[in-house]
Structure formats: structure tokens, C-alpha cells
């Protein structure tokens, strides 16, 4: 994985000391909160319901054991012994003290991490396919390009004050495991009919209060023009994005209002100009970055395993993914124990995961946007040992992509923007289905819960989505069906009037009943919904 050079390290260290001085002045009363707020947000420090919250970037979800151990140490030393992995492949700490914040950033810098650009109207952490570099179906490893984009977008002076925040995802497979078309820019690296590698650009997707699927703006950008094209996309947005209205300021609104064709025309015009200016980094820089993402030294080994232990066999079936080397798999570490808090991991669990990565996965880990972790390269021969250690640490839940594998934002339990709690719903739904033995019966079902319209829990893209709203001071939940953030991307539709907490849990059961009664062989919940439509579900809920 990428390692900082002297420029990277100097930039991050300088920012730590700059923030240390800013925090000191705030604590001494020399800065008002109005003056300090944009400064702390630029360093990922929010003020949430109960305390300051620090969001730490995990670039494209990739980190090593040393970094995971540092995250564990921070959880223990400065927080309350745990961290929360997010839908943008980051980690958040919920109980941070302002007086500790600069020391935490210094600790992060020592392991080549930071919290820069995890807030504010700038280009946020670049996200990617969690199986990048391991997946059997990828054209290339997308992470060198994600890293190039990270370096280009870090402290980019022109894009520090965009109309709104800006999120970019990069993938390199037909399968979309990064919600690519629900990003401001989604980049898919492809191989064309001539065998050349290039990038498709999808621009103007997003969730939030106005969910939109990004249209294709360019079907092939040569990779030695990748940054130039991204810059052109940003420049048009920066010039014409709605700065007068926060709710209309995202690029999706601009693309929608201009129309994809007109936006594309303007981007192409800007692109031609930018090509003449010459902003593309030298090819040598991409080549330098790519060397950090070379395959580890895979070795041949057994390609089959003993599945006589049914618990292990179920975990293998559910939580492992085909690897490009046939003696390996990628192993998903579920942070969704039945009744648990989605995405939370204790410091001790982080250390277990770090050790497993060091011992069994070439020192490499991934944070998944589904709020799970991943060991990308595990020998099939080592899989039982890995599972045993995970299971002992409470990390062995065999539930990837099932109804227990719920994405849930922090909701009203932590977040100052939330209108309703998300986590208790996730806990109760996973318990309800697990205890009834229905998880396996229902199969693949992606349920996503957001505690407010900002949609951090991706409810628009859930096969079943739940949105928490404030109804006269009480929690109320809207149910929606039919969303997907994968390659078959679609936006979920609201079923009808909302429910209270008990009611929405019963409603989830009812819609799965409809699915089970209606499905044909091999159909997922989403497939059945698409075939039979909304009416049978509405009838069961409200009829």
C-alpha cells in the first residue's frame, strides 16, 4: 500500500502543528466558536450531541496493521474504548476532548494518517471497491488512481471552498461494490474493445434529500488524462454550482438543472482548455504510486477446505469472496453481531484484526462502505484459523449481505443532525430475524437505515430502506423498497405512511413475508420486488 514520501509527511505534520495552535487559541478564549468552527471542521473535528467527534480518513478504505493498532490506541487512550466505521470507509470517534485533538492528530500522523478533508465543502476521502487489488473480476487495481486523485485533491487550492462537499469513488470492475453512481463523481476503469484501459466518468449522483443516479458523462477518458478530466468536471461545478442555496448546492443539482448533455458540453470545453494548460501529473508519478500497490508474494496452496464444521462452512459461504489467486480468498469481518451496533469495534477487536492481517493477509486491511472490515488476501489453507480467531473476538458473524448486515448511521443516539434513532432499529431487526431463523431463509437482502434526510445510512439504496423523521417530536420511520447501490443501481420508493419503532420492525417482517411467498427460484428480495412491483407489499402493509 502507499507510503508517505517526505512531502506527504511534511504536509500532514505542518497541519497538525497549525491545528495545535488553533485549538490552543480557542481554549484560551482568543478565538470564538464562529471563528474556530471552520478550522476544526477542516481537521475532521465535529461537535455532536454528546461530545466532539473526530472523523479520520482511511484512503480508499485501505490500511495496514500498524495503522489499525494506532486507531485502537486512540480509541483506548482518548475515547471510550471503541470506534465507529462509516459508510465512507472512515472511522469516527464519538467522545473526543478538544484539548486532546491535536495530540490525536499527531499520533495519526506518525502512522501516515490524518483527518484532513473529512469535513467541509471540499473533496472528501476518495472511496473505492473494498476488494480492490484482490478481486478476480477487476480490470486493474483501482487504488493507484484513487491515490493519484487523493494527492491531487489534497489541499487543492481551487477546490477548498466548493459550493458543497464533494465525494469521488473509483472502481475497476463491472460489479459496483462502492455505490459508484451515487457519488458526485463515479469513476469506473474499463478496458475498451481495443484493449486500452481508460475511465468512464459518471457525474452528479448522490443521496441526501434529493437522491440522484449519476449519468454517464464520458465513456472513455485515457488514464493519462484522468486528473485533467476530473479537474474539468470540478471546474464547471465550482463555477456554476448553486452557492445561494445549501440544499441545491451539490453537483447533482447542477447536472440535473443544466441537463447531462449541457453539463457534458461545458466539461468537454473546459477539458480541451485544461489539456492545453497541462495539469496532468507526470506519468512517472503514477508509476511511482503504482509500485506501492504491486501484488504481494502470493504462493500456491490448497484450493479447497474442510467444511465439516457447519458454523465455519456457513461463514465461508457468506463472508468470503473470490480472489484473483485461486489459493486465496478475501474474508469479510462482520461488524454486525446480532443485536450489536453496526460499524462499532472495540480497541481490543481492532487489535485482533490487526494481528490477523499481519499474520494472514500480508499486513493489509480494508474498511468496507458496508461498515465491515476485510482481510483482502487470506490463504484458503489459513481460513479456519482466521475464522476461529474472529469468532473468539465476537467478529465471526456469518451475515454478509443478509438482513443482519444492516447499514445504519449513528442516528439520534450520537448525531446532532438526526431526527430519529437508527441503531436500535438495526439491533432489533437483526435480533428478530436471527432468533426466528429467518436470516438464511431470506438470503441476500440489503437493509439500510438513516436517521435523517442526509442519508448517511444509504436508505435510498436499500433493498429495504428506512428513514427516521421527526413527527411532532416523536420518532417516525418511512419505509422504502427497491433501492440498490450496486451495478443494478436504483432508488428506493416510499411505501406509504410511516410507522413508529415497533411498527416499522413489523413492517419489515411483513414485506419479507410477501417476498418469501412470491419469490421464484433464485430470486433475491430486490428481484422479486422488481418483478411484482410495489402493490403486493403496500397491500400487506396498509391493505
Amino acid at each position: 500500500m502507499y507510503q508517505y514520501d517526505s512531502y506527504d509527511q511534511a504536509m500532514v505534520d505542518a497541519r497538525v502543528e497549525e491545528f495545535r495552535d488553533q485549538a490552543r487559541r480557542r481554549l484560551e478564549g482568543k478565538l470564538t466558536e464562529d471563528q474556530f468552527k471552520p478550522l476544526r471542521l477542516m481537521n475532521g473535528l465535529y461537535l455532536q450531541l454528546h461530545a466532539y467527534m473526530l472523523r479520520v480518513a482511511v484512503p480508499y478504505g485501505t490500511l495496514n496493521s500498524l495503522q489499525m493498532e494506532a486507531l485502537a490506541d486512540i480509541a483506548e487512550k482518548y475515547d471510550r474504548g471503541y470506534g465507529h466505521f462509516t459508510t465512507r470507509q472512515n472511522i469516527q470517534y464519538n467522545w473526543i476532548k478538544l484539548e486532546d485533538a491535536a495530540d490525536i492528530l499527531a499520533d495519526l500522523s506518525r502512522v501516515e494518517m490524518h483527518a484532513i478533508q473529512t469535513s467541509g465543502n471540499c473533496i472528501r476521502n476518495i472511496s473505492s471497491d473494498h476488494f480492490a487489488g484482490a478481486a478476480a473480476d477487476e480490470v486493474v487495481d483501482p487504488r493507484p488512481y484513487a491515490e493519484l486523485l487523493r494527492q491531487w485533491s489534497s489541499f487543492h487550492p481551487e477546490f477548498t471552498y466548493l459550493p458543497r462537499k464533494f465525494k469521488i469513488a473509483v472502481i475497476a470492475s463491472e460489479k459496483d461494490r462502492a455505490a459508484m453512481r451515487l457519488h458526485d463523481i463515479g469513476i469506473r476503469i474499463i478496458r475498451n474493445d481495443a484493449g486500452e484501459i481508460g475511465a468512464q466518468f459518471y457525474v452528479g449522483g448522490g443521496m441526501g434529500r434529493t437522491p440522484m443516479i449519476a449519468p454517464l458523462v464520458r465513456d472513455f477518458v485515457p488514464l493519462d488524462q484522468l486528473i485533467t478530466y476530473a479537474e474539468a468536471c470540478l471546474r464547471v461545478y465550482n463555477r456554476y454550482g448553486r452557492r445561494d442555496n445549501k440544499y441545491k448546492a451539490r453537483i447533482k443539482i447542477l447536472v440535473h438543472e443544466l441537463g447531462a448533455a449541457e453539463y457534458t458540453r461545458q466539461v468537454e470545453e473546459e477539458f480541451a482548455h485544461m489539456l492545453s494548460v497541462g495539469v496532468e501529473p507526470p506519468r512517472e508519478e503514477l508509476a511511482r504510486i503504482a509500485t506501492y500497490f504491486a501484488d504481494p508474494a502470493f504462493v500456491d496452496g490448497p484450493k479447497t477446505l474442510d467444511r465439516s464444521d457447519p458454523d465455519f462452512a456457513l461463514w465461508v459461504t457468506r463472508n468470503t469472496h473470490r480472489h484473483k489467486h485461486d489459493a486465496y480468498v478475501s474474508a469479510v469481518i462482520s461488524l454486525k453481531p446480532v443485536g450489536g451496533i453496526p460499524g462499532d469495534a472495540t480497541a481490543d477487536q481492532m487489535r485482533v484484526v490487526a494481528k490477523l492481517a499481519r499474520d494472514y493477509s500480508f499486513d493489509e486491511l480494508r474498511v468496507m462502505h458496508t461498515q465491515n472490515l476485510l482481510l483482502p488476501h487470506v490463504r484458503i489453507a489459513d481460513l479456519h484459523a482466521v475464522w476461529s480467531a474472529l469468532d473468539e473476538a465476537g467478529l465471526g458473524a456469518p451475515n454478509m449481505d443478509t438482513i443482519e448486515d444492516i447499514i445504519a448511521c449513528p442516528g439520534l443516539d450520537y448525531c446532532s443532525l438526526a431526527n430519529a434513532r437508527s441503531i436500535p432499529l438495526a439491533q432489533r431487526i437483526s435480533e428478530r430475524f436471527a432468533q426466528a431463523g429467518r436470516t438464511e431463509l431470506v438470503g441476500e437482502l440489503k437493509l439500510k437505515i438513516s436517521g435523517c434526510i442526509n442519508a448517511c445510512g444509504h436508505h435510498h439504496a436499500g433493498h429495504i430502506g428506512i428513514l427516521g423523521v421527526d413527527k411532532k417530536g416523536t420518532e417516525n420511520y418511512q419505509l422504502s423498497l427497491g433501492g440498490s447501490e450496486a451495478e443494478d443501481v436504483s432508488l428506493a420508493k416510499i411505501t406509504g405512511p410511516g410507522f413508529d419503532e415497533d411498527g416499522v420492525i413489523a413492517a419489515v417482517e411483513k414485506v419479507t413475508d410477501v417476498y418469501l411467498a412470491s419469490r421464484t427460484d433464485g430470486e433475491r428480495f430486490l428481484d422479486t420486488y422488481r418483478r411484482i412491483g410495489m402493490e403486493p407489499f403496500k397491500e400487506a402493509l396498509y391493505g
Partner: protein
Amino acid sequence: MKILTGNDLRSGAVTWWNGTGWSLFVDDAVDVGDEAEEILARETAARRVNVPYAIEATIDAAGHVRPAHIKDRVRALGPTVRRDLAVPTADKTGWDWVI
């Protein structure tokens, strides 16, 4: 009753105006009546608290203060899903009224 709340500058912890300073315990909150704006202006200027604001609340027969809005009730006790991390309170019925 009208009470004042904010977050401690140093720790970010939720605090409540007790008449002379800022307490971690909602039960210490006092009714500020029509003095809310004056106290908020003074305390903000003194920079002893972060983003303070006034809220409606009730007080029960046992003297326990209950913020009117669900968000402030959650702030008063802590995350409902991590009661082990809750703010210590003398009100043993706290979790019964927060939601």
C-alpha cells in the same frame, strides 16, 4: 420551564445552566424564565460554553428535569444504545422518559 444547555468547550460534554455555572447533570438545570437571552449572551461572550441555547423543559414531583424535545432528552442521558456510557443521574426512571 425554560432551561439553558450547551457543550463544554474543553470536553464537548453536554452541560446545563445551574444558575451560577454549567453542570453535567440535567437535574441541576434551573428555570431561567425571561433571562435566557441575557445569560446566553453573557456566557457566550465569556466563552465558558459552546453554542448554548434555551429549551423548554418540565420538572416532575421528585424534582427531575425533563427536556421537552427528544434530542435534548438523549443529550441529557447519553446514547440510548450505550447505557454503560450514560451520564450518571439520580433519576432512576431516566430511560423511561428519554424516548
